């Protein structure tokens, strides 16, 4: 194993050497962790009320309002499978919570989030947030 000692590395892209898809980073202690696996592959913050609109996002190609409290966010770069960790949340007004829509709706190209209140009844939410960790295609 070679070691590069440097204060600053100036580059636009990082690619693994032994394996293009695996770069190891030493963590806060002595253990190492995977750079690729630790990166969020998608995140989005959107307004889910009457005029549904994305406030900010990463790796999102589209946002679809499927109906009350039901949103689909599409990826620009797809995932390799639909087993990724999709987590979503929303503002807490009226006991709102947001969860993964039924399992069949999450695909390699999109994930679907579903908001409802404490009753529970589906509801539109002002602040909706989703993120994905997993394997890119």
């Amino acid at each position, binding site marked *: 194993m*070679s070691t590069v000692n440097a204060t600053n590395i100036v580059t636009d892209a990082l690619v693994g050497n032994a394996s293009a898809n695996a770069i190891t980073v*030493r963590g806060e202690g002595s253990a190492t962790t995977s750079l690729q696996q630790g990166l969020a592959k998608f995140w989005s913050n959107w307004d889910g009320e009457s005029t549904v609109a994305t406030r900010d996002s990463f790796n999102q190609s589209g946002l679809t309002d499927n109906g009350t409290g039901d949103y689909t966010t599409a990826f620009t770069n797809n995932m390799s499978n639909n087993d990724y960790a999709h987590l979503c949340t929303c503002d807490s007004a009226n006991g709102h919570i947001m969860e*993964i829509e*039924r399992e069949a709706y999450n695909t390699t190209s999109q994930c679907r989030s579903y908001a409802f209140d404490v009753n529970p009844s589906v509801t539109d939410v002002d602040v909706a947030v989703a993120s994905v960790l997993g394997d890119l295609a």
Partner: protein
Amino acid sequence: MSTIVTDTLQGKTSATSITLPTTTNIGSTPLVSASANSMTIRGEGSAVTNIQQGLCKAWSMYNHSTEATLDSFNQSSATDTSTGVFTWATTNNFASVNWVASSNLHADNANNDVSMVHSGTRSTNGAATDKATTGSSWYAKNSSNSGFDSKLAGYMAFGDLA
């Protein structure tokens, strides 16, 4: 392949500048900073952020109904403990119990599911354990505050590795 054995390389035109080929192989090189545990990366603007602190240290999508881990990172095992409760263990442990995590379930109308929380916050769940450096237990509950096995129980954890 020839070998140059030297202690110092010096540029000819400029003593402090040497041009390397477009592709220069320097072996299999993990990124290790001078302080080993702290590397920075310039963010989207002018500020810099910490790579180690920003990386997710563990994540998983678990089907509690079939007790199968669909996909995961830094999870050595996920075990059914009781209805609604499963315990996951890390491959590489955390440095302390002060790591943070968020979780999610799939919308299950039949169960009126509400949320998934660290089961260590509840004392009535039998074998469920408090959050530890080696993992934790999660408890999926419905609107009646009863546990149920979710088909999609996901979590992600951030914090300091040991």
